């Protein structure tokens, strides 16, 4: 899972969509509806005369430069910077965390389990199952809590319930071994690799 700000994505999409829709609708209206054409032309003339006066009134040191033009450039610059900042948020980063779980203290000491151990344990256990093409185990930080993500790509025609039950037993055993149950999210994928791989299991 990544940290993409989805609310921001949709808000930006809505605002820009409404802007484009508005501009496009106005464009069609003024070209095809005489009343809209009249309103557009008169409003345009009024705006132009107001803008000419405003530019003349805000001329810098009596020259050609105007505070309005400078302000417009500054405003555009600010909006562009904000949009670029939003883009970096849109891209999102993986919410990956370093998983480290410590069990209870016992006479022999304390067992600390790291992500790589969990990853290797799950991968090695699944490696014996021929219907599984690939396994990926990561730990994500979600609302300040570690969540294990086990992503599995099985061969085509593999029963997902059998696979889920097997993974469930595996993760339960792992939790018993490490002494701590971690919230786990399992995703089972299909894809090019599953399509290209032979759907029959090897017989050995």
């Amino acid at each position, binding site marked *: 899972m990544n940290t993409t700000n989805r609310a921001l994505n949709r808000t930006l999409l*809505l605002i820009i969509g409404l802007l484009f829709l508005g501009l496009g609708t106005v464009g069609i209206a003024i070209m095809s509806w005489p009343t809209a054409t009249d309103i557009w*032309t008169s409003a345009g003339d009024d705006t132009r005369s107001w803008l000419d006066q405003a530019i003349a009134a805000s001329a810098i040191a009596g020259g050609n430069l105007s505070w309005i033009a400078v302000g417009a450039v500054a405003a555009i610059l600010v909006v562009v910077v904000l949009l670029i900042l939003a883009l970096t948020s849109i891209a999102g980063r993986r919410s990956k965390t370093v998983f480290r779980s410590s069990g209870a203290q016992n006479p022999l000491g304390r067992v600390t389990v790291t992500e790589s151990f969990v990853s290797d344990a799950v991968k090695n256990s699944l490696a014996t199952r021929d219907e599984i093409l690939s396994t990926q185990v990561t730990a994500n930080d979600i609302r300040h809590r570690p969540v294990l993500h086990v992503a599995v790509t099985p061969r085509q025609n593999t029963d997902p319930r059998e696979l889920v039950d097997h993974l469930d037993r595996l993760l339960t055993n792992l939790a018993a071994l490490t002494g701590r149950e971690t919230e786990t999210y399992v995703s089972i994928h299909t894809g090019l690799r599953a399509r290209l791989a032979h759907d029959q299991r090897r017989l050995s």
Partner: protein
Amino acid sequence: MSTPVLRRVVRRETHSPRTVATFVAVILLIVALVYIGLEIVLSLAAQPALLLGPAAAGGWLIGLPTAQPAGLVIAGSAVLALLGVIFVWLAVTPGRLSKHILEAGDRAVVVDNGVIASALGQHLSEETGLARENITVGVGHRSVDVTVRPGAGIPLDKSMVQSAAELELETYRLTRSVRTRVRIDRPDAKEDEL
């Protein structure tokens, strides 16, 4: 999937973040704003405009209703409006991905629809004795469509396929109930004659 954290994970994994659409929309807006800003700066610096200076652009905008060719302006506006409709549509629709959630106690399990479809197809192939390539399964959010092509002269009971598909889907324990539709696709008489 009892905790709010896992519910959040599942929600995010089963719905599109709309990243690509937002990226395209923002880039288009940035390009437009940068161009306008550049034209203003060139005008302030008394340099020749890239395409159209601010004053000329203002004049062109006011005279847009009489601009020629009118068809081109209308077409451009229609494209802009259509793009706007697409962006608004993408912003307000949920954007569900082709995935189903499986019941799995305290864990959250999300499965691609393709995995369910291929597993169900394989199961129906074993149940009916038909070759796997003669069974097509499409899995949607609310329905599962099964198309079986038994070939000429091979008897096949539609209700048997239907119940086999429903029973198999029950064993998957999907959190959202789905409607199963079965279609038996037999080659028509003309093909038989050929």
